[in-house]
């Protein structure tokens, strides 16, 4: 009797016990910091007199002041536009290449597939900072093979680390690093398509291209949605790559991307309150975009299921 009761208690309590470490970590390293950031964003420092001595600097309620400051900050807006431009290159090119390579891997009688698949996936193992360094050096005129080739051909040599080409230079780093991972995700989904699906197409004498366009791509739409979603989030949060290129060029400012601006405000200027407000705004934009996107994807799925 006693043992039976203890056992049922054990089953009931077990999931909570198993989830305890995750819950504690979540509270300490997710919930508490987010709460603290929100609190900071609603306060500011008030300085009494010269700001000397204890109690001269006090944190007081600021309401939405930090938020209005952030939202009217032209540098933040410019950074957001830069990141949008960057994302408009990275996401379509990276996912387009990932889909292309995945489809090519999934073709019959393709040669060297395991080797090329591994080579394309390899950049995933290389830290973003190191990738940015390697490409950064390849962009430097004195070191780069591109300039050498252009020079030999007598073609003009654009500065890859300035102006418009800078976007391409930065996008290239992200595309290089991310294509392989997304390719694997899409390729795995392609492999999961049952063979019977192709049989009708074979009987109809469909070409490989037709099979790819009419059967394969529609079947992997869920993976494309997933990779698109994660790529957008990663793009909005770009930080390491432009930060790494900074020592190599003067065209990357300390506030190039919104997250770099948050870092700069917090640690460069020491204004943690406005940095917190900007951070909260970026988090909200990310959340709204994510949930909006997931809802759109869900309703599309439901529509398709209804048809």
């Amino acid at each position: 009797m006693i043992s039976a009761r203890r056992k049922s208690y054990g089953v009931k309590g077990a999931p909570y016990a198993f989830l305890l470490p995750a819950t504690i970590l979540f509270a300490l390293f997710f919930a508490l910091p987010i709460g603290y950031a929100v609190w900071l964003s609603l306060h500011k420092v008030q300085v009494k007199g010269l700001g000397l001595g204890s109690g001269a600097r006090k944190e007081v309620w600021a309401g939405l002041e930090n938020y209005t400051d952030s939202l009217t900050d032209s540098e933040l807006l410019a950074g957001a536009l830069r990141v949008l431009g960057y994302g408009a290159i990275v996401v379509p090119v990276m996912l387009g290449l990932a889909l292309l390579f995945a489809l090519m891997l999934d073709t019959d009688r393709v040669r060297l597939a395991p080797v090329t698949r591994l080579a394309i996936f390899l950049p995933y193992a290389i830290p973003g900072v190191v990738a940015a360094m390697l490409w950064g050096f390849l962009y430097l005129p004195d070191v780069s093979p591109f300039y050498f080739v252009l020079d030999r051909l007598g073609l003009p040599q654009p500065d890859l680390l300035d102006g418009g080409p800078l976007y391409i230079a930065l996008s290239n780093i992200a595309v290089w690093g991310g294509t392989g991972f997304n390719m694997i995700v899409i390729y795995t989904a392609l492999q999961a398509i049952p063979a019977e699906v192709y049989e009708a197409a074979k009987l109809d004498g469909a070409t490989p291209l037709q099979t790819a366009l009419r059967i394969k791509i529609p079947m992997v739409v869920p993976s494309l949605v997933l990779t698109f979603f994660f790529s957008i989030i990663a793009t909005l949060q770009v930080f390491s790559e432009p930060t790494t290129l900074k020592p190599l060029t003067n065209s990357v400012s300390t506030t190039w991307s919104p997250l770099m601006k948050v870092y700069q405000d917090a640690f460069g200027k020491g204004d943690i309150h406005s940095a917190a407000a900007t951070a909260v705004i970026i988090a909200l934009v990310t959340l709204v975009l994510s949930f909006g996107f997931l809802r759109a994807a869900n309703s599309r799925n439901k529509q398709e299921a209804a048809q």
Partner: protein
Amino acid sequence: MSSLAVRKAAPAAGTTPGTAQGPPLRRRIAFVPTVTLLIGALYCLLPVAWVVIAATKSGSELFSTFTFLPGTGFTENVRDLNAYRDGVYWKWMGNSALYAGLGALLSTAVSAFSGYALAIYRFRGREAVFNILLAGVLMPPVILAIPQYLLMAKADLTDSYASVLLPLVLSPYGVYLARIYSAAAVPTDVVEAGRMDGASELRIFTRIALPMMVPGLVTVFLFQFVAVWNNFLLPYIMLSDDEKFPITLGLFTLLEQGSNTPALYTLVITGALLAVIPLVALFLVIQRFWSLDLLSGAVKS
């Protein structure tokens, strides 16, 4: 190996049994896909090939000889790197191994417990817990890292190993993968049978479920290992003592100083090469243990 050679030789002879029915050209190799993949592979290997060659160049050769022409300074570069600030480079590598290894291990353990609980038990708040954890994936790291830094400062923990290790232990993505994997790999009747035998819940988990979850957990571990090894932002914010830097941050500071003293560029390049080798080697050895179908969430029981 021999079968590969036969397959290669056969199309040239044009007498493989397979070619009998179809047009011979289309039977042999899919030309366009193979070439496309080769171009993709070359693009991905280009910077790696470059760093291998550039690391062999001495400081003067780096800026004067053709990019893909090997130099003569590799051993000297390695010696300089070893000598730089009494071998701080190897300290960075050791730190990265510690952060990534221990961090991934702890993270996998937490993910295993949580994923198993979320997959096997029916309890109040299960979906809520799961959704809150998933929302964690969407949080931009900087948003978390700055208040984490300020809070760590209050606890007097900044600039410590713990400040870089602890915030990364809970990985929402790891929990998500572990949940999918345990739902697919651990049958409920096995858990029930364990209960019938009077085993405690913890014992069922460690003795029965955990061994079944190993392939999925290897994937979680590798993911987390790569994520921590590649992390730059958190150590960048938390650490100021360069004896505690991971390799990413160490190389970055070296590059930053290099903009004033270009002689350091050869150190950066050699350092980048040596930093890439362990992870690439790890990758080549264990890539076959990855259950990559986990990535697309497409596990079938």
